[in-house]
């Protein structure tokens, strides 16, 4: 190809334009932030450059005559089980650039999805199933440490009173929360939408590590504020603004790796909230430099409890890695009220592709092991468990809760609800759907009114489905499902996998 690197033609996508339908209205030209569509002055018509297409489908979605289809490029390399095309393309890319391969969104690699190998139970004959439309069904969940036992005293008039002092709890109407996505990684419109949707549906959203804009403090009852290794936007008002504080130690998509928000994404609002200069890179170190041990973590947990006057529960988020159960045990013993475990399929705005695709373990295995370990050690009541990383539907939520989670975080699903097509170019800051961008022209594409409605709809829809599944199992409360692995059976899993998940094989 003329004037181009020789591997330029090995692109991923092809734009198909139906000539009978295309009217050259240029809607695609205006929508594409990668300039794949353009107005050709000499030909007097809209043309496209396939090599620039990233497969986001924005043009396809907005084309008024449905003239566009985005397809995978049909020319495949010679089939090879070892040298799959992705490896060739990566090597070509790195031979050109000499750089680390960056990736966005969750890992696309083919590791087992255990959700798909677990099946739920239902009531038949011996125990009645429940119709959630006609009978009460409770999804309310409280996150935080629970007392080992309750003591009750009776006053002079014989009225019982709770003597045990309860620790602070985060109250959720539905056990599904919006995962930590920072202001900066995604834009203000979506932060606002998450805050509004969480408030409307009685759940919580997590600010991520980029601080909380002052105008969103009013949604504090439904906000979890995060403290990460960069400490961006952390100050006393911030810590007191939410209903829970989360210390982010690790992220499922990139365990052991910090964060890097490029300076181009730091506009006035992000700069103000993160308390960093406009245009400067915001770098989160890989570790917290004040946490090199469980004892150090304990100090930070109690520093945050002091700062927030013991009014909110403290969560510690760790990535699912090989010794996650032992780490979680240490985290609980350090005083965390909530342990968040983030599996390797969790999303990210930017991560080195090698880390994202090769580091960590699936959430299902990690979750089962963490729950079991805390139970074995008799400290399960001291902390709630939140599962994150690859929750795709309400069925996954129910399975996660049966495996021992108290609640789940949804991040990727949140973004898909507002249009994300998993094109995986979040790190470029040019998100054509206006999600992972702070560009003032692109971020407008997310109208918070629409986004908040969609997010609230998603939570409500999943809530209804969870009620139906619970009812089918003869349960009338999410509490009765928590850690109830008898409601799960595995299919096509090895004895080791069943043992780790703590479930029986289907048929047993």
């Amino acid at each position: 190809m003329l004037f181009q690197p020789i591997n330029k033609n090995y692109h991923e996508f092809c734009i198909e334009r139906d000539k009978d339908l295309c009217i050259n209205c240029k809607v695609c030209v205006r929508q594409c932030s990668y300039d794949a569509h353009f107005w050709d002055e000499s030909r007097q018509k809209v043309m496209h450059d396939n090599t620039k297409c990233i497969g986001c489908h924005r043009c396809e979605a907005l084309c008024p005559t449905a003239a566009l289809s985005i397809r995978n490029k049909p020319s495949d390399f010679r089939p090879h089980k070892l040298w799959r095309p992705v490896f060739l393309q990566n090597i070509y890319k790195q031979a050109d650039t000499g750089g680390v391969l960056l990736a966005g969104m969750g890992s696309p690699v083919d590791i087992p999805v255990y959700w798909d190998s677990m099946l739920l139970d239902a009531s038949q004959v011996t125990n009645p199933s429940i119709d959630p439309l006609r009978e009460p069904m409770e999804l309310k969940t409280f996150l935080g440490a629970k007392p080992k036992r309750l003591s009750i005293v009776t006053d002079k008039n014989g009225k019982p009173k709770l003597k045990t002092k309860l620790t602070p709890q985060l109250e959720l109407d539905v056990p599904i929360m919006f995962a930590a996505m920072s202001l900066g990684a995604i834009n203000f419109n979506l932060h606002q939408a998450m805050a509004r949707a969480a408030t409307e549906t009685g759940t919580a959203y997590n600010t991520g590590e980029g601080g909380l804009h002052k105008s969103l403090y009013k949604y504090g009852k439904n906000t979890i504020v995060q403290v990460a290794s960069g400490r961006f936007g952390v100050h006393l008002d911030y810590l007191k603004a939410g209903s829970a504080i989360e210390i982010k130690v690790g992220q499922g998509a990139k365990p052991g790796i910090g964060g890097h928000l490029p300076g181009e994404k730091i506009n006035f609002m992000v700069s103000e909230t993160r308390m960093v200069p406009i245009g400067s890179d915001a770098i989160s170190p890989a570790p917290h430099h004040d946490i090199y041990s469980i004892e150090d973590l304990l100090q930070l947990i109690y520093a945050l409890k002091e700062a927030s006057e013991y009014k909110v529960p403290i969560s510690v988020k760790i990535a699912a890695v090989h010794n996650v159960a032992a780490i979680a045990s240490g985290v609980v013993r350090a005083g965390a009220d909530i342990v968040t475990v983030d599996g390797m399929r969790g999303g990210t705005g930017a991560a080195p592709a090698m880390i994202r695709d090769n580091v960590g373990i699936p959430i299902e295995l990690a979750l089962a092991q963490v729950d079991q370990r805390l139970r074995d050690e008799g400290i399960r009541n001291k902390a709630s468990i939140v599962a994150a990383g690859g929750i795709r539907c309400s069925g996954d939520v129910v399975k996660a809760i049966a495996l021992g989670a108290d609640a789940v975080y949804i991040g990727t699903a949140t973004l898909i609800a507002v249009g994300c097509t998993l094109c995986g170019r979040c790190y470029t800051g040019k998100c054509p759907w206006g999600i992972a961008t702070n560009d003032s022209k692109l971020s407008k594409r997310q109208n918070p009114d629409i986004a908040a409605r969609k997010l609230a709809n998603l939570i409500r829809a999943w809530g209804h489905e969870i009620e139906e599944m619970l009812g089918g199992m003869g349960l009338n409360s999410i509490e009765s499902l928590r850690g109830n692995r008898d409601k799960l059976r595995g299919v096509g899993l090895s004895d080791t996998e069943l043992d780790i998940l703590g479930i029986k094989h289907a048929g047993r």
Partner: protein
Amino acid sequence: MKRVYPDKEYCIGCHLCELACITAHSKSKDLIIAYREERGRDGLSPCKKVFEKGDTCVAISCRHCDEPSCVAACISGGLYKDPETGRTVYDRDKCVGCWSCLMACPYGAIRRHPIEAKIVKCDLCEGRENGPACVEACPNQALKYEER
């Protein structure tokens, strides 16, 4: 009265409202025919236009003002205020193409017909079942049809 209000905060400059407008005002009611054929042949053009400057864009159409300058400026009675609906109505037959209204409109919401001595102006898609076509087509709810 209900009017179409643009929201520049969320207008993404896609121009789909213009396409919806010409479709709604076309003979064929078919976007492809309207855009490819009627636009050139009959001078079909949208009653609204998306203005852009820098990162800001906004779709401007007739605001159906309470005291419209265009009506005051009209020399032939081609523009008048409908006392019942409150709309600023255009009577094409009376229009002589003097374009006084274009000069008078403070919003630049009236445009010349491309091939005839007439004007093009928003009629709020009178008679259309689902209200103004532009509002229905806007993918980002940057156009609202409401009482304010």
